[in-house]
């Protein structure tokens, strides 16, 4: 076992920004795996968990917290965290020849048995290479020696693993907390080759080097999620993280069925936890961590069938203690008067966000966003009545079948909304009109969604449509934001790409180490390397033949391809589909294939 790197790391801390990201020692990190403890733990499986982004993002990632808590409960297993160092620290590490280390014990990442890297989205791929390189681990699985750790991918980016398949030894497809003990058991054999073979035998694990090209790897899920205890998220960071609060996962899955949404497929079916368990977990979690805010998270929190009661109970429990309760991910059609009142009472009205996604009813039907303009107006009207001053609306451009009229309609909708809100202010005697922020992103077709066959627009065409929108959104009272279209463009190419993108990803990382950093995207570097790598971007963007093979055909989410085809047909016919958690099953196949079922507390 190698020695602690701490004596070599500490002198670098004076040179870098926010050193507390690198020190470990946060409350909740176990003393028995803190740096300095000796090789008494040498027989333990050293299981690294990495989020390929800086500490501030990684430490607040809920998935990794769940896995960290789960691994701590397994005997013979030592979970260790590592994140992407900031550019100043990365440069210092290279200059002083110090390898990347795991926070808890300050030992080299290279000395782990396994390093689990979550892939939050496609543009984080260069960051994975940066982590491997800083660790001194060969980038490609085939170049790794018997002593190198097994690099195990997971998260949303693993559902089309092909662009990064060369860099990983294995991928876990699905909710990994369902299989932690199986993974740990598979890794308890002596050699790297045997470990890989054992991993390949675990359902839900894809080992590219041992795969026959045909066998379908099906997503694993926590079948009884609704009954599982809410995991305590034990580590309370020093450095301010992006979600610096206690998070309680109310439910998993969303079956609203928005056709562009990958999460809607990857986490089905809906599984609601019991209200009592949630309230208890929130109260205990605040006691155990000392946070002053608890966030009730899920893909669509206001869909939780007992949300008003849970919220009311938590508000009452935390009254007078300075603890705020927040709920992200609201939907326009069920943000009720009740909910608005409970949230508004005595709390910070921090701004509400809704996502109508498209401007015209026709296009909202195509994408199956079952929200009407009237619902949107009334909801924001309620919010204004209750005293909210800021509302953010998300829209997308470049959706399948979108016309110039649909784009212009986003602007018209905003104009009508502002007129409505001004009128409502006068009528209801509201003190002011809500300030509207309109945030517009570009549609990215994602694997495993009904839109996986859809065309991705070219960059010039996106820019042309953005201009239409810019001309039509009223200026007064509205702030217009854009998500970088060039970034979405590359994200889309990677999302539906295959193995031939691996050299491009590697060259982008070599050309610009900044590409690993969350805001380090450089469009021209990607463009050059895509061209140099002989990638036909036109072909990648084009509408796909529904009968042709896709690079991710050997990965199954449990949703049947036939259902996806039917959805793609319904989309183009403008036919909507209702939410299966509200009654009618449309036969997507997830429940049958995964032996799961929809679990809700009350009828939705």
């Amino acid at each position, binding site marked *: 076992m190698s020695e602690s790197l701490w004596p070599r790391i500490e*002198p670098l*801390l*004076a040179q870098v920004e*926010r*050193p*507390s990201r*690198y*020190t*470990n*020692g*946060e*409350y909740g*990190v176990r*003393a028995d795996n803190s740096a300095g403890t000796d090789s008494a733990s040498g027989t333990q499986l050293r299981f690294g968990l990495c989020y390929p982004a800086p500490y501030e993002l990684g430490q607040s990632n809920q998935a990794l917290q769940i896995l960290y808590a789960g691994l701590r409960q397994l005997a013979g297993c030592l979970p260790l965290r590592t994140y992407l160092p900031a550019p100043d620290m990365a440069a210092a590490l290279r200059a002083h020849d110090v390898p990347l280390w795991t926070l808890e014990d300050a030992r080299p990442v290279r000395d782990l048995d396994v390093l689990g890297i979550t892939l939050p989205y496609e543009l984080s791929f260069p960051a994975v290479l940066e982590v491997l390189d800083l660790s001194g681990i060969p980038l490609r699985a085939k170049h790794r020696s018997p002593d190198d750790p097994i690099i195990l991918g997971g998260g949303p980016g693993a559902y089309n693993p092909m662009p990064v398949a060369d860099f990983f030894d294995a991928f876990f497809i699905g909710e990994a907390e369902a299989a932690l003990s199986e993974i740990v058991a598979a890794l308890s054999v002596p050699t790297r080759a045997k470990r890989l073979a054992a991993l390949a035998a675990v359902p839900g694990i894809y080992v590219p080097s041992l795969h026959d090209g045909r066998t379908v790897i099906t997503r694993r899920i926590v079948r009884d999620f609704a009954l599982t205890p809410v995991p305590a998220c034990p580590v*309370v960071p*020093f*450095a*301010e993280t992006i979600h610096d609060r206690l998070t309680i996962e109310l439910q998993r899955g969303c079956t609203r069925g928005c056709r562009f949404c990958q999460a809607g497929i990857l986490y089905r079916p809906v599984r609601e936890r019991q209200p009592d368990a949630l309230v208890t977990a929130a109260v205990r979690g*605040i*006691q*155990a*961590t*000392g*946070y*002053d805010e608890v966030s009730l998270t899920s893909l669509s929190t206001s869909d939780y069938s007992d949300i008003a009661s849970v919220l009311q109970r938590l508000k009452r429990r935390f009254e*007078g*203690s*300075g603890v705020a309760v927040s709920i992200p991910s609201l939907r326009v059609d069920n943000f009720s008067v009740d909910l608005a009142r409970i949230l508004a009472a005595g709390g*910070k009205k921090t701004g509400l966000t809704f996502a109508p996604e498209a401007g015209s009813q026709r296009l909202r039907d195509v994408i199956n966003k079952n929200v009407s303009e009237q619902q949107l107006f009334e909801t924001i009207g309620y919010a204004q009545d209750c005293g909210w001053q800021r509302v953010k609306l998300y829209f997308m451009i470049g959706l399948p079948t979108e016309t110039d009229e649909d784009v212009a309609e986003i602007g018209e909708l905003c104009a009508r909304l502002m007129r409505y809100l001004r009128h409502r202010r006068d009528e209801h005697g509201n003190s002011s009109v809500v300030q509207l922020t309109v945030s517009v992103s570009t549609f990215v077709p994602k694997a495993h969604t009904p839109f996986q066959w859809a065309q991705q627009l070219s960059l010039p065409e996106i820019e042309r449509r953005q201009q239409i929108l810019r001309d039509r959104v009223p200026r007064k009272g509205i702030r217009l934001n854009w998500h970088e279209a060039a970034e979405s463009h590359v994200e889309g190419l990677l999302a539906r790409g295959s193995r031939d993108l691996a050299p491009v990803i590697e060259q982008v990382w070599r050309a610009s180490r900044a590409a690993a950093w969350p805001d380090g995207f450089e469009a021209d570097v990607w463009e050059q390397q895509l061209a140099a790598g002989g990638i036909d971007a036109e072909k990648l963007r084009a509408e796909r033949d529904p009968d042709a093979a896709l690079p991710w055909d050997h990965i199954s989410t449990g949703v049947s391809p036939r259902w996806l085809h039917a959805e793609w047909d319904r989309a183009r016919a403008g036919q909507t589909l209702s939410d299966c958690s509200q009654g009618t099953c449309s036969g997507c196949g997830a429940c049958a294939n995964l032996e799961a079922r929809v679990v809700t507390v009350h009828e939705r």
Partner: protein
Amino acid sequence: MSADFRLRLCYAKAGRGSYLSHLEVLRALTRAIRRSGLPFAVTCGFNPHMRIALGPALGVGVGSDAEYLDVSLTEYVPANVALARLQAVQTAVLPFLRAGYVNGKDASLNAVLDLQRFRVRLLTIGITPLAGPRLGADGADRPDTDGDGTHSPILPAGFDIDVVGDARTDEGWHVAREGKASTRELSAECLAAGFAAVRSQEALSVSHKGKTKVFDPRLCIPNDVQVSRLEDTLEATFDLRISPQGSLRPDVLIQAVFAQLQLETPPYRLTRVGLFMTEQDGVRPPL
């Protein structure tokens, strides 16, 4: 307004805790108090938060043996009980050391604390002369006395300049020989002289973010600086006044001392070892 019991806590920024920023310390302490379950008071108002006040901020990288905070409780909890509860839920790098009640009407920590004591430990005492032409204490060019291509560093005014650069031992510089390589080391006397020289200046101007501030070191550094030789390093303990108009920063003082010695500032570890309030009969810690 309910009853207000003002509990004063002393805590340390120990080991890796020195890398926390003031804001991070505040957040970590607030969370510890919340975990302890003590009946802390909450501010009235739209965005209620814990009624807590910290003493003067420390920079990132600076440790401390004794920092203070006041937190208002709504019920009386014996100080030793409160301390035990806090210690049970705190991380090792921000340990709570002492607790005691103070009069709720007393002025705040930041209003009463007017003196801080620092200890600086040099991590290396090998010396690197500053680049560029060297001037003697008298303002004259210094010759390259030892022929190694560098100008020898000089001592502050008042020190015998001839002791510099001699290959044998002298009271100013100490040269250790190890095989062929020779390393110069800084002596305790020289470091003390550097501090004394800065202390005797009438003005020390400090530029920070484009603004220049002038301090009077004679007022800012009220007491003699203690320098001692440890096994293989030097340690200096010095006092700095805390003033509402702005306090001289310890790192700035250290920089100034080494600039005076015309040496590169070596890496060092800085610790605040005490915070004091001045009373009629002298200074005392706030708890």
